[in-house]
């Protein structure tokens, strides 16, 4: 499961890198989304316990000791939903910005400063 942790970290860093280097607002939002996904992977990886299965209580799983920690999994679901909402909101903003100025370059929105 280490690989997922590492992957998560890589995604977070990659996302941040994208947010910092891309000038296009859409790409920045994508960067954010990648970072978000990386975070989710990290959460999942933290809840994982070796040799256990998904925390779905059915006949195949006899008792709680056979499943991984269910809390991170539950959290990640919520986090994904929220991430979705935030991303949607960002995209809405991107549309609005484009409507007003016909540009998606983040350098074009510097009226407010100092």
């Amino acid at each position: 499961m280490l690989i997922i942790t590492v992957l998560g970290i890589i995604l977070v860093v990659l996302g941040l890198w994208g947010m910092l280097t891309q000038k296009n607002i859409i790409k920045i939002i994508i960067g954010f989304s990648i970072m978000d996904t990386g975070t989710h992977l990290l959460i999942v990886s933290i809840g994982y316990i070796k040799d256990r299965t998904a925390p779905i209580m059915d006949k195949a799983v006899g008792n709680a000791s056979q499943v991984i920690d269910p809390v991170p999994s539950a959290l990640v679901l919520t986090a994904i939903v929220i991430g979705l909402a935030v991303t949607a909101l960002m995209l809405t903003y991107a549309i609005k910005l484009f409507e007003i100025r016909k540009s998606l370059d983040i350098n074009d929105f510097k009226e407010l400063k100092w």
Partner: protein
Amino acid sequence: MVNPIYIFIIALGVGFLLSLFEKAGKILTMTVFYSALAIMTFISGQWLIALIRGTEIMTLTTAGFPPPFSINLRMGLEEAFFTFFINSLGILAGIFLAPKFRSEKVYGMVLYLMMFMGMNGLVMTRDMFNLFVFMEITSVATVSLIAIDRNLKSVSAGFKYVIASGLASTFFLLGTIFLYRFTGLLNIEMMAEALNYASGQAVFLSVFILLISIIIELKPFPANGWALDVYEAADCGVVSVIAAGVSAAMLYVFIKISALLNQNLMITAAGIGTVTFLFSNLLALKQDNARRLLGYSSIGQIGLIYSAFSFFRLAGFTPGDQTVLLVVGGLFVNHFFAKAGLFWLAGIVKKDKSDEWAGLRSSPLLLFAFAVFILALAGLPPFPGFFAKWQLVMVLSAKGMFPAIGFILLGSFLEAIYLFRWLGKVLKTDPFEPIKIKPWEAFPVAVYLLAIILTGGFLSGIINQGSSLSVLYLPVLFVIVLFMLDFLPVLVKNSLVIVVFSYYTFRIMPQLSGYRIMFGIIFLLGGILLFIPGYIKKGRRLGFYPLAVMMYVGLAGLLLSENTLQFFTSWELMTLGSYFLIIRGKKSEPHALSYMLFSMGGAFVMLLGFGVLYHVNGHLLELATLARIPDMTGIIYSLLTLGFLTKMASIGLHIWLPGAHGEAETDVSPMVSAILLKAGMFGMVVLMSAIPAVKIGFIDIPYVLGWLGAITIFLGNLLAIYQEDAKRLLAYSSVGNLGYVLFGLALMSHLGWLTSITYALNHFLFKAMLFLAIGGVVYRVGTKNMYEMGGLIKNMPISFISVLIGIIALSGVPPLSGFAGKWLTYNAILQKGWYLQGAVVIIGGLIAFLYCFRLIYAVFLGQIKDRNRQVKEAPLALLIPQVILMIAIMVFSVLPGAVLRPVGKFLENIFPAGGLNWQAGTAFTEYGYWNGYWIMMVTGGMFMMVLIWLLFIDRKAQKVKQFNIVYAAERPFRPETTHVGYNFFAHYRKALGSLSRPYVTKFWDTLTDITHSSADFIRKLYNGNGQTYIFHILLFVVVVYFISFGG
């Protein structure tokens, strides 16, 4: 009791149902909407009251499991407090936003409800992940509302905001999940218990990430450009919610998670808060956009609040400690009301530039509100911020955290600069466009105005427990009454003030003892006397009486104060009142500002001094403990002295005085000059009578003060001779005269103090008289330039006589009372052995002749100008006090013993030896002797003799016309060129060369320039690019990590 869960149920339920109601019409929808907000407020308010009365804290859990198996919400005192404030803001900001909600689709209201639901959740939940959820709900709703106007500015600001808060919540999520990894818990309290920093660096890192995410939400310097943009661009109603409400919720989140922090991280938080407070206020200096200015101020205030909290935790206070509640709560309430109110005002005024806000003057209510909010932010009494800041400084002092106090006070001072600059502009800019006031916009402002005043009173009640500040309460009540009666004409108000003030004086005077009696005479009796000229004003003179009385209340409070808090409160009340008096003059705005800044600076230094005192004397407030300071005497002494000297306008700290006194109104100049300056002296007397000798290293401080006083006399008088403006001349002369007072006190001997007190009394008498007389002339002639006057002796004989007596008393020529001061000076310096300083003092005093002559000559003698021929004698209201003062000077001149003997008797308590030895009317020292009565008699006798002789031989002298002089073989019909008035002492300037240059002004100007240009340089950081702001945030995280890890 309604279960607090209903707050969420109502917000959510109504939120979703609103779309349905929309079909039934806007009115119903809005009714439901406001009812929902009202019910939320009611629930939290009800809990607040109940919890204060001692109801048990309620803990809500989901699905009936106790934590850690469920999410739990808490409704304790703090939660009730925060939710009540937030929900009340919900209603008021909702009312303010009513037109917006009316015109927009229903989603605006839905989002608004969600936003408040989120904030309530942030406050109440005790679960880490739940916090994340509420944080996101709040931020999504907020961000959506930011763009409610859909214009470019608000949309681009909103985008920056959503990116930044997205980053912050990602960090929060990461921190939370790692903490879960280490503790297996999500409940904050349990997590705090389970947390073990010793288990490795990773724990530290996770808490760090968590902390930093919250701090980013609290907008730390410099990672806060995105927030500033929102403050500037979004709708004012929405911004008020962000600045006050969301910040409040996040602040409480910070307080909650602070349980997790270790010492290092607590220091980090405190440091970031302090730096944010300092730099926000610095950068705000260059800001001319009102809302961005408020943004900077908000960020700074929030920084102050969480740094204060962190400092308290570091100092070992538990979060629930009463002191913590008082300070953090006080600062918070202050910021909350003031900032919400100011953003609403921004919405009402609808002007971007902060110096275009003068339109507020068209509504007394809004103007009053604006002033109160500004003063509250600046931390002046009687508003909550003052008491909170006082307590903060005292607590930090007790723990010896002086660098922190230094930063906080410096930040507060920078804040005062832009706040008062703004206030001044609003009060004085002309002409202004009246603003249109809509009731739904003014109502919320009025509510918070009332709230901030009431909480101020409430806090002062708590903080003054046990000590009797009640002496101040009644007068302050009178101030409030005067505000309410402000619609009455001057005639009524003036009489009312004189009557009430006289009664108050009559009550107060018997309570005074020792030197306080003398100051009582100057402050109170003098005060009554100087209200008489007020009758010359017509109309209503809005705002004058309450604030003038406030100044006197402060002065009276000084006299009665027994502990440092009372003293400081009175001091600030006095400063506040006098600021508003000074700024009434036509061109007073810049001068009132510089007065205020010097006063605030002085007051902060003094506050630090009181803090150090509190630190060393075993945490006592009593002023009497000054007399038994075990340690750091030199520092306390110097700090307090510096504070007092700003009010006494000693050289170096004097540059505010000429403008402030010179440009003030006719009856204000004598008040601030003759009376107010003595407040600084009073402070010095209190200090010096308690601490007789003090040294820092081998430097004897009174010795330094002696030289300072001597130089002040010399330069003050020298600068006075170059003034063209009669009132400025008098103002500079006050600088010089207060130099005598300082010099006398610094002598630290019986005679020295007697000199000082004699000067103080004389200065009160003649300066009040001179300012009244010259004020009368200015009132009639309409100019203050002396070279435009001349020859007024025939038109204004009584004013002439009073100026004549005034200058004789001032210059110390026998037989009038001023000579007493000179004679005492000689004896005192000989006794002390300060010969060289003494020489400077006396030579400096002689320069006074120059301006004295110039004053009386250029105004009353010489050639009258054509346009002044019809000038009449000054109004009776100005003459009556002058005549009274004249009589007083005469009595003091003939019978100096009547005054000096009792003063000497009192001084024997402090300096038993070396006083005057009286034999009948003659005063003896070991050096010389002097008899005021005989001097007057001999002089009068000679004068009468010569006069009778001249009258006898020259009885037929003919009166001739103005131009009947021998002048270049003809009569000069041009008084303008014949009256030698302009640049009268040019030769003196030439002779003294560089001594006459305004180095001090230059020094302060340069300092101001450096501060402003560095602010301008630093704020270029915020280049407006959203991406740069992301970079700021990341950089901030990295840098802070290394600092806190290293530290």
